[in-house]
Each structure stands twice: as C-alpha cells, then as structure tokens.
C-alpha cells in the first residue's frame, strides 16, 4: 500500500498562501449548510416529529381554544387566526433552540477543533447551522399554514410572506444562541437545563399559545421585557394581513437586533471553542 504513495502524494500545494483558503465566504457557508442539511435528512425520525408536533398542536389545542372565542383576547372570528401565528412562532423557536445539542457532540468528537484549524470563517460555520434551522422552520411552517387554511385560518398572502421572513430571523436568533450556549456550556446536562429553563418563561411571556391580553397587568408588563413578545405581536398583525403597523416595525427591529447579537456571540464562541 505504501509503495504506491510516492507518486500519488506529490502535486501542487493547495495549502500555499497564493491559493489556499481563498474560498469565498458564501461558498463556505453553503458547504457548512450542506453538511448540516445532510445530517438532518439522514435522521428521518427527527423530520417526522418536526412535522407532526405542530400539527398535533393544531389538532389538540384548537378545540380547547374554541370555547374562548369571543373573549377579549380573540377579537376576530376564527380561533386559528390567533393560534396559527402562535404555533409558527413555536416552530421557529423549536427549530432554532435544538442547534446546541450537536454542537456539544462535535466539541467532544473534535469536529469543531478540526474545523477551527482550517482557514474557514467561524461565522460561515455558524451560519451553516442557522440556515439549516431556517429551512427546518420553513417546511413545517408552510405545512401548518396550509393545514390551518383548510381548517378555517384566513390566509393573507403578503402578510404571511413577511411573517415567514420575520420568523426566519427569530429562528436565526434562537439557533445562534443555542450554538453559543452549547459551545460555552460544553455539557449536555447544562445545556438542557438552560434551554428548558428559558423555554417556559420565554414562550409563556410572549403570549404564544394564549394572548397575554388575557392576563393581569403584571403579566403583561413582564411580557414587554421578553424580546420574543414583540415578534409574536408582529406575527399576529402580519397573519391578519396588516403589514405597515408600528407593532410590525418594532417586532422586526427587536428580532433583527436579537439575531445580530446572537450571531456575534455564536461567532465569538466558535473563535474560542475548546473541548
């Protein structure tokens, strides 16, 4: 075997400064996206659950909410008009927050260490996962919209398109945060504690499942401290087809700022990552 190596291992050096590592940033991000997307597609159980869980929410939660229709939190006709945007936010949150688990495995197995020694951009490395998570939000998201539409959800196309853009930003913020947490905490147990710990207050205080307007004043005040609250307010407005409102503007500003901050944090965490 080794006898044949001499002629085969010679050749031009790609590692030289002239050419090596000159891969454009977008290509790098695309390569990392492809890697993570393949990883997801090879786990069919994960994809099936990603699709069925939101549909179960629609199927099992909507009957409960029907009795609330007409109360102060439900100004419009169909409960799905309030509930579908909430479920979409949940899908975005869930698609993003799962990013940290494989990161810990990649730390332990040396994958991240090896990639850190290549000239690849750390932001591209992070974005590969972020973009995969956005896809993993968009696919079940569209399924939920279609199923909801069949069940009575009023579709406002332009608003929904803007809504999916907004929630893609939210997915990015959650995904980058989860990756950063994984890189910093380094242990599955710690990551699980933090993610499940923030999940309840963040989702409850955003009024995802039930509008916060149903609650007392103190609850609504707390909600305003939660960055996700603004995304949910904007999401309800967009789902109703009203795009040019202050709520939508604030929702975009807050979510984009959160995403930018999370991407910065995640990139920094990759710069320092050590098993």
């Amino acid at each position, binding site marked *: *075997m*080794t006898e*044949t*190596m*001499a002629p*085969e*291992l*010679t*050749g*031009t*050096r*790609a*590692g*030289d*400064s002239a*050419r*090596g*590592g*000159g*891969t454009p940033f977008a*290509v*790098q991000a695309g*390569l990392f996206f492809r*890697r993570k997307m*393949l*990883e997801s597609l*090879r786990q069919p159980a994960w994809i099936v659950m990603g699709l069925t869980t939101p549909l179960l929410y629609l199927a099992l939660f909507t009957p409960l909410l029907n009795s609330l229709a007409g109360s102060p939190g439900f100004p419009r006709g169909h409960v799905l008009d309030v509930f579908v945007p909430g479920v979409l936010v949940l899908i975005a949150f869930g698609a993003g927050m799962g990013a940290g688990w494989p990161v810990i495995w*990649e730390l*332990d*197995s*040396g*994958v*991240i*260490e*090896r*990639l*850190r*020694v*290549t*000239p*690849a951009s750390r932001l591209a490395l992070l974005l590969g996962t972020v973009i995969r998570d956005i896809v993993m939000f968009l696919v079940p998201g569209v399924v939920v919209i279609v199923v909801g539409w069949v069940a009575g959800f009023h579709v406002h196309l332009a608003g929904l398109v803007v809504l999916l853009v907004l929630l893609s930003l939210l997915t990015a913020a959650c995904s980058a945060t989860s990756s950063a947490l994984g890189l910093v905490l380094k242990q599955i147990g710690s990551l699980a504690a933090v993610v499940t710990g923030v999940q309840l207050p963040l989702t409850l205080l955003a009024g995802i499942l039930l509008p916060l307007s149903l609650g007392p004043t103190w609850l609504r005040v707390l909600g305003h401290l939660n960055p996700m609250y603004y995304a949910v307010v904007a999401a309800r407005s967009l789902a109703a087809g009203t795009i040019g409102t202050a709520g939508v503007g604030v929702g975009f500003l807050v979510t984009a700022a959160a995403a930018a901050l999370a991407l910065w944090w995640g990139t920094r965490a990759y710069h320092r990552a*050590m*098993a």
Partner: protein
Amino acid sequence: MSAPPGPVRDSAVTVSGLRKSFRVKDGTVAAVTGVDLAVAKGEIFGLLGPNGAGKTTTLRILTTLLPADDGEAIVAGADVRREPRLVRKRIGYVGQLGGADANATGRENLLLAGRLYGLSASGARRRATELLTVFDLAALADRAVRTYSGGQKRRLEVALGIMHEPRVLFLDEPTTGLDPQNRANLWDQLRQLRANGATIVITTHYLDEADQLCDRVAIVDHGAVIALGTPEELKRRYSSNAITLTPEAPAADLASLARELVEELAAESLATAADGAAVTNGTIRLAVTDTTRAMAAACALLAARGIEVADVSVARPTLDDVFLNETGKTLRDTGAAA
C-alpha cells in the same frame, strides 16, 4: 534522511519563550512554562513526554487553537499570533480527538476539508479519491464514518489533515489506541509525507515511536523542553552506562531492593545517581559508572542476599534514560499513572 538541527532560516517551526497558564478552581496551572525549539524543514520532530507535560497545549498554540500568554511562534513562515489565518492555510492538524464527522461519509469529510482549504470542486474530488486509495479506504468511501473501525477512522483523520498538502503537519498522539499493524502503517505514511517534502511535528508518550520515527526529539516535562536532539544523540549523552538485573523469582519488594543496590554500589563509586534506579516488569535497571565492574558487584550483592539472577545485561540505552536523568522518574511510570 536524518535532518540536522536546522538553522532558523530553514525552520518550519520556530518557538521561543512560549508560556501558557490555565485558570482552575484554586489558582492557575502553568501548562507551558517556557518552550524554545526550532523544527527544520523536512524533518519528523517529536515532542515526547508524559501525559500532562504540556505537549498538547504546545501543539494547540502552534496550530492557532489557543492563544499563548507569552512568547513567539512562527509556523510555516507566519506568526501564530498576528497571522493566524495564514498559518491555518499552510498547516494540517490531526488532533487527539480525531475530528472526523461521524454522520458524514469518509468522502464527504474529505471533500468538505478540501473545499475549505480552497481546492476546486473537481480538484477536491480528485484528491479525495487519491487519498482514499492511498489510505486503503476506497471500499468504505461512501459509508458513514460511524461504521468505521478505530484504525479506519484514524487513517481517514490523517487523510483529512493532508487533504491540502500542508507544509507542516501536526499530529497529536496519532497512534494512541492503534494496533501494531496500523501503527506501523501510519509511521510508513508519515515517512512518505516527509519524503515528499512535508515537515511533521508529532506528540507522543511512546518511547519507541520517538526513537524509531522521529529525526529529532524534544523531551518535555512540566511545560518545558528538558532535552533536545536526535534520539541517538540523546541516548549517547545521557545513558551510555546502565545495567539491568532480572531476579529469578520476583523478590518481595524490587523497588527497595533496587534502592539498596544503588546505595551499596554508590559506596564503591559505581552508581551514578542516588535515584538512578528503575523497576519495570520485574527487571531492575541501574545507572552506573562502569558497566563491567558494576555488573559483577551487583551480582555479588544479590548472591549475598540469596537472590538468584535470571538475567543480567548491559542496558541498551533508551530515551527513558534521558527522561530519568533529567527528572528522576521514568517516563513509563508517569505515562502509566496518568
């Protein structure tokens, strides 16, 4: 080809005054306390030392994974601190953890690495196929790495490290956990890479690996280089005189017996150091001034105690003697303890 200690201008790696401490719960631990060395182009250079000696930390600093607290390191012509990206383009790294993506296939792993280093899609495909053949992985190329054996995974990881034909290849304990055959194969492949012009820096705690594979060796302990040279030089410098004694029936306490022998030989000016004794696998090894006289004297001492001697010989010098001379302990002991 045994490379001579290279002048700095021909260096693939130049390190001076390297220091690194880590904060731990109660204070700081100094992992690297002042490493100076120069690795010549085209040599296989070994960092030999027990676990925790600072080998991995040194390698992580040289591969830009970890910032040094102090000191200079020039790797493949670029400054590790100021030009980390340039360093990354020119080096390859095979870490202790390996780092192959278990969910991807061997070929996918190689293609990603190649593209990240700037190879074109077709260039990366060609190179991946070539390496898969060279490392005897062609039949497994399109299987998930999860299904590879330890030796197969290790070969893939070395292939990942040289996908872009780096000028300097760093390997952190590359043969740990490999069976003898895979180990010998890897040595052959590293020698082949050197023949093609690459410089190779490896860490190891195996004496035979440092001895047989490396052109030059730096022995590292407590974060500093305690000896540096070709294996032959080091062995000649430190361990020309040693004898080994193997008692017929293992005595109750060989360590205390060894100590007594040293004391009594030292009284006759035959033993060199008060702590120059080591016991491994039922054999006592003594550093002495005159092998012939010491052998006779030691046999007489054992006979006086009624201990039959199964074997006595002049010890072939090993790198462990160097370590023993410098640190007062054997590399095997420290390596096994960690």
